[in-house]
């Protein structure tokens, strides 16, 4: 088991900078997720940690040993691929035992370790099967087995559930987390699916255009997004942004929003008048006739216990998550009230969050 440190990591392909100076530390035994849209550099970062790509600049430390330019096989880490990458010319047992064979372990010991691993993953009955005959979930288990059998310092997983259908994905999510808790190995998990990251990870790094936007606990990322990108990327539907122009003073508890004032968490920094955005999560909105922000109901999406109601206002279309029991009529004029203690403020020009009593304390990438 190991701690992984990444310092000023950069990677360029010709003119394109895939990763631009990442810094983070993954604690020993942590389940760390790298989350972001495709092309954000998360997979490249993971491949550099694995040794499958060499960084243009920066350092990678495994247990404070510099492995930046070490060969992948010398790093003692395991990689799980999205496509599983099971060798088609070997059966399940041979696939799982392959890393041990690479190391030149005796056949009898390999057999024993394969058995133990298969037992842990509950795939003992599949050991002599052909990999092509397996279901998606079983293939993933075999791929995990091949990663685990060597007892590596860390597991690196590149969208390992991406090729599974949604039903299996849900099952494998809990299985993966359960497995992590049992063997306690440091795990770096790359995904573009926020639900996977939120439900499994201890800590999440949200990446965008080669940069780490925010690193934190899932709750921090959701409740106190460090930037408009994070706020927009996490949450479904994403956070609403209401643009306004105003200056801010430290200690204020209200903002002047167009012609009215809206209560917000206590502001902790001074800002000259500039383009600002008020961030409101859909679930922190409710209908109130007296509310100053008003609009016309555009549509409603029924989701069982809740519904997503979209309202056209003077500040753009706003999505609100309301109980299904709330009666909604299309075209109806409604007032929108926000839960003031959960509101966030952003500087539009930089996209960064403005420090308030509840936001801005999370570390930036």
């Amino acid at each position: 088991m190991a701690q992984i440190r990444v310092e000023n990591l950069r990677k360029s392909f010709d003119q394109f900078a895939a990763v631009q100076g990442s810094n983070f530390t993954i604690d020993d035994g942590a389940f760390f997720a790298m989350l972001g849209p495709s092309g954000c550099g998360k997979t490249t970062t993971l491949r550099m940690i694995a040794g499958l790509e060499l960084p243009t600049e920066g350092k990678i430390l495994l247990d404070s040993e510099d492995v930046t330019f070490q060969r992948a096989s010398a790093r003692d880490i395991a990689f799980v691929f999205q496509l599983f990458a099971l060798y088609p010319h070997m059966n399940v047992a041979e696939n799982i035992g392959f890393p041990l064979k690479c190391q030149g372990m005796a056949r009898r010991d390999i057999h024993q370790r394969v058995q133990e691993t298969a037992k842990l993953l509950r795939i003992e009955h599949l050991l002599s099967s052909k990999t092509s005959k397996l279901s998606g979930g079983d293939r993933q288990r075999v791929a995990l087995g091949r990663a685990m059998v060597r007892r590596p310092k860390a597991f690196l997983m590149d969208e390992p559930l991406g090729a599974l259908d949604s039903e299996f994905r849900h099952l494998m999510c809990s299985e993966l987390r359960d497995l992590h808790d049992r063997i306690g190995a440091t795990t770096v998990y790359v995904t573009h699916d926020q639900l996977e990251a939120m439900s499994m990870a201890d800590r999440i790094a949200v990446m965008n255009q080669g940069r780490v936007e925010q690193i934190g606990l899932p709750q921090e990322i959701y409740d106190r997004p460090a930037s408009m990108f994070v706020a927009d990327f996490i949450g479904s539907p994403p956070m609403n942004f209401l643009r306004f122009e105003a200056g801010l003073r430290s200690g204020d508890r209200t903002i002047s929003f167009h012609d009215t004032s809206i209560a917000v968490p206590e502001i902790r920094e001074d800002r000259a008048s500039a383009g600002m955005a008020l961030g409101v999560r859909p679930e922190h909105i409710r209908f109130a006739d007296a509310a100053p922000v008003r609009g016309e109901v555009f549509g409603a999406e029924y989701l069982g216990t809740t519904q997503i109601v979209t309202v056209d206002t003077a500040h753009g279309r706003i999505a609100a998550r309301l109980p299904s029991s709330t009666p909604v009529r299309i075209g109806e004029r409604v007032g929108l009230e926000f839960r003031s203690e959960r509101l966030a403020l952003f500087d539009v020009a930089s996209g960064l969050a403005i420090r308030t009593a509840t936001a801005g304390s999370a570390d930036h990438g």
Partner: protein
Amino acid sequence: MTAALTKSTAHSIVEASPRAKMVAGGLVILYAVITILPLVWIVATAFKSQSDAIAYPPKVIFEPTLEGFVNLFTVRTRQTPDFIAKLPPPETWYDKLVRQRDMVIAGPSKVVPRFVNSLIIGFGSTFLAVFLGTLAAYAFSRFRIPLANDLLFFILSTRMMPPVAVAIPIYLMYRQLNLTDTRLGMILLYTAVNVSLAVWLLKGFIDEIPREYEEAALVDGYTRLQALRKVVLPQAVTGIAATAIFCLIFSWNEYAFAVLLTSGEAQTMPPFIPFIIGEGGQDWPAVAAATTLFVVPIVLFTVLLRKHLLRGITFGAVRK
């Protein structure tokens, strides 16, 4: 009436109608006969006597003899019947056969060394071309190589002109390097011609193999070369087999360069076979015997690899 109508109008897009199947089957059989007939005729001629071979109308039914093969493998001299009568009785069946035609065996012909040349040059250049082609194709497929596309085009451009166009320069070059009429020279030449085909074919096959396979092996403890040998090659075996067959067919049958560059030591079968005609009249059965023996290795090689070949040709045509 209605039944007939339904039957004739019922179309299926996946199942051909019985008549279409019959027509298709007939065409296939016709094509097979057309392609196989010359081969059958050659094999038959190999077992005919000289007079049967040139008989008109052609003889389909004949008394088989090994005369053609004996003539192919031996050099004979014509003698008077008196001389032959004075000789001690023939020791072997082929001595006897030759003496019936008023000849005695003077020694072995050059067919065996020429055949060995063909084997060494054909298989040697095929092995080299596939070996080099695999390495180059792997590199082109997996690494970021500067000017990769230009290099690939350059490699292919070596095949864009007819071989004869470069025959004279190559002849002069070979004379300078003392490579004319050497096996090494022929192996190098055929390898050079085949390697471009091998690189292009194999690059296609290796591109189809997900790189995750070898990356998994790299992480699990293999070096790049080990991963190539133990993980990539077993999956590329289909493509390698198909490529090997194409390369072998080329270097086995190549005639123009062989005529130009070999005359003795390193002569291969294609330029040798026409020479047989000249040795003692038009000995068609001997020529046919040589041709029959000549096609055997390539047929064997293709039959051994045919499973791979079929899959190899269609491989990559459909995305799985």
